[in-house]
């Protein structure tokens, strides 16, 4: 490979390049860092904080759903405006300010340089800028809920004309601020994505060929490319909608020549690939955790990689299934049904590969492994229920019901919560040089995985019985006043409270073990990938000596070897 020449030369000035990094002040190191790991932490903590805010919002509106008209401490009576704003911002936060920063930005920043064996991202300052823009976007979003008129309440899809005019949405400041925050966030992730892609393409350890790259890195890169190729129209659309809101253009006003359906397309052309933008990194995390604790090579590496790429390509031609009944031409819906059902093939294939990895394995049920297995088990449900919605015929009924809501929470919670926990428990020793407590980790696991089903299984039922989304009081509709539906809603809400309660254990465990946990060595899990070569936690510059790569990342239990793992950097003897 052409690189090896340079990289070897570059390794020469390693000592020089990083010698002067030790005298950084606290502010330089943690507030304005250039180190990819610290920036990853910033994304992780900001993302989790936003996730907690989003979860508290779900508490507010789930209480209203279960006990309509009762005061919800500490919010008091939930007004429709407040309800709409909570629903809208919950959706936006969980996807744009929780799932994306944690799955792509936090894990991407932390893992990419470590796992491909180099000392940092290629553009540390762009990386820092990307976080700062992201932080600004989060601040703008939070602020948008406290301006006169309240936060935007037009759903996270923000369909005009409702979102385009304060005459309709009653939030003259909330709506533009929401949109501005989203646009800023896109800019942050574009910068981050360019950094990720360039780093992977140019800065791999010598010897790391295409099929030696760990799956999680591939997934983050594919996700970044998907994001970059799909977000453009929505950035343009956000500018157009912002002009509609603020200076009175008519891009989406039919009377003035615009078209509301255009926004739907601009939004979902991005919105659907976005699902895979967060799904793929989660799949990647699971692909890292499974082989380590199964002590077994990942089944069919190349299949996983190519199915991921196929999923990415297909994700560009399925977007209109979100709009089947939204006013698009019904003939187009047939084309999009075909593509939507097709995309189930690579995704199921990926899941079968993961299940196949467990065949003949030697499974240690550690906390990260439990979460990884739970991801597969729960995501399967999310995937299968998606077919009801992708099949145009049944979508006529299920569209915009709680069935849809339960379906995508069955995909997003495994993605953004369960897989993220698997990743945090797994890489915690690398992040902080200490273990998290395994017992409390398992308590947290059962307290997350079981109540989660308690929330959303009842919602499949209520959705199939006709509960439609985003109504602040379903008792306004006679068909939805049946006692068993009311019970199901209450059951879901109580399960939510239980699940939220168990997260407290996680936070205590996390922060306690950050400082007091059992110390971990460089490679506590006996894993192969390059991040475990660096000390725990890795210093700025990561490796004492930059590693070379000699083999694929999943060579566990290779016959004829004494140890059951074979690190990527170990030369063949």
């Amino acid at each position, binding site marked *: *490979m*052409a*690189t090896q020449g*340079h*990289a070897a030369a570059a*390794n020469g*000035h*390693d000592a*020089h*390049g*990083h010698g*002067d*990094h030790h005298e*950084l002040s606290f502010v*330089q190191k943690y507030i*304005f860092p*250039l180190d990819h790991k610290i920036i990853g932490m910033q994304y992780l903590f900001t993302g989790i904080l936003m996730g907690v805010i989003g979860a508290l919002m779900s508490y507010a509106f789930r209480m209203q759903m279960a006990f309509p008209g009762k005061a919800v401490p500490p919010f008091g009576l939930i007004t429709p405006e407040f309800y709409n704003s909570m629903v809208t911002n919950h959706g936006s936060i969980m996807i744009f300010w929780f799932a994306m920063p944690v799955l792509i930005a936090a894990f991407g920043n932390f893992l990419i*340089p470590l796992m491909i064996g*180099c*000392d*940092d*991202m*290629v*553009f*540390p300052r762009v990386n820092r800028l990307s976080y700062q823009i992201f932080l600004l976007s989060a601040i703008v979003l939070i602020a948008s809920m406290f301006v006169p008129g309240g936060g935007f309440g037009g759903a996270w899809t923000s369909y005009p004309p409702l979102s385009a005019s304060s005459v309709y949405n009653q939030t003259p400041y909330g709506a533009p601020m929401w949109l501005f925050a989203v646009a800023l966030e896109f800019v942050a992730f*574009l910068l981050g*994505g*360019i*950094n990720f*892609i*360039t*780093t992977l*393409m*140019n*800065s*791999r350890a010598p010897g790391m060929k295409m099929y030696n790259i760990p799956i999680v890195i591939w997934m983050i890169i594919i996700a970044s490319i998907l994001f*970059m*190729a799909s*977000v*453009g*129209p929505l*950035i*343009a*659309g956000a*500018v*157009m909608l912002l*002009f509609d809101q603020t*200076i*009175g*253009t*008519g*891009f989406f006003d039919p009377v*003035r*020549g*615009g*078209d509301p359906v*255009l926004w739907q397309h*601009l939004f979902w*052309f991005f919105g659907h690939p976005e699902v895979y933008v967060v799904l793929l990194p989660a799949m990647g995390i699971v692909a890292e955790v499974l082989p380590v604790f199964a002590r077994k090579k990942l089944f069919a590496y190349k299949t996983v990689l190519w199915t991921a790429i196929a999923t990415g390509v297909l994700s560009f031609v399925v977007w209109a299934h979100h709009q089947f009944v939204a006013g698009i031409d019904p003939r187009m819906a047939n084309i999009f049904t075909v593509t939507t059902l097709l995309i189930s093939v690579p995704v199921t294939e990926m899941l079968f590969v993961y299940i196949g990895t467990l065949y003949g394995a030697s499974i240690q049920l550690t906390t990260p492994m439990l979460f990884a297995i739970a991801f597969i088990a729960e995501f399967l449900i999310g995937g299968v229920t998606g077919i009801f919605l992708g099949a145009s015929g049944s979508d006529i009924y299920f569209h915009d019901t709680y069935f849809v809501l339960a379906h995508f929470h069955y995909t997003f919670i495994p993605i953004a919560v369960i897989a993220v926990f698997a990743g945090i428990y797994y890489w915690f020793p690398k992040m902080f040089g200490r273990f998290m407590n395994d017992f409390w980790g398992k308590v947290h696991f059962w307290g997350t995985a079981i109540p989660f089903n308690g929330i959303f299984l009842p919602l499949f039922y209520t959705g199939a019985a006709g509960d439609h989304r985003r109504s602040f009081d379903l008792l306004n509709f006679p068909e939805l006043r049946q006692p068993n539906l009311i019970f199901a809603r209450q059951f879901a809400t109580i399960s939510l409270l239980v699940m939220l309660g168990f997260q407290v254990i996680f936070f205590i465990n996390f922060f306690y073990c950050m400082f007091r946990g059992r110390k971990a060595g460089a490679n506590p899990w006996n894993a192969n990938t390059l991040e475990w070569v660096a000390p725990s936690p890795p210093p700025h510059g990561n490796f004492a000596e*930059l590693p070379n790569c000699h083999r694929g990342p999943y060579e566990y239990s290779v016959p004829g070897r004494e140890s059951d793992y074979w690190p990527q950097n170990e030369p063949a003897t």
Partner: protein
Amino acid sequence: MATAIPIATQRSATGIPTGKLALWWVIGSEIVIFGGLLASYLMMRLMYDSWSDAASHTNTVAGAINTFILLTSSLFAVLAHDAAERGKGPQAAGYLLLTIGGGLNFLVVKAIEWTGEISHGFTITTNTFWSFYYTACGLHGLHVIGGMICMGIIAFDAVRGKNLQRVEYIGLYWHFVDIVWIFLFPLIYIAK
């Protein structure tokens, strides 16, 4: 603050320098942004017969002059790259300044053109054709301004022979902005 360059930045597994590779991805992401906007415009332009009447009010002469200016500034940008390639920093900086001059000219023509249109009552809210007109040209204009600022900084370094490879990168960006205009020109000014 310590500004040592990470080894990551200096590696080049693809054989393309890191900065240049990143710039190609920037251009890739810009293609979809402009592509989304222009595709939206094109759909409505093709649907509404009346938009050709609206388009007849655009100033073809100004558009043509601006195309000429941008093409010429692209020539200067590539000459700057050529000079940088030969290690002639000050000469490269000189060409960059000429490119910036082209950008300024472009903006001046644009300003005159917009002033005329606004004084005739064609503002961004007049109707959706003009909304697209101002949004697309405005977004493009912002790219011109951004490119000029970066070019100024790079020219400042280039005089002293520093960071000469960046002359090429900013040139790539400038050519891309030029290409966007090459498509805006027929879309807005010529097809009537």
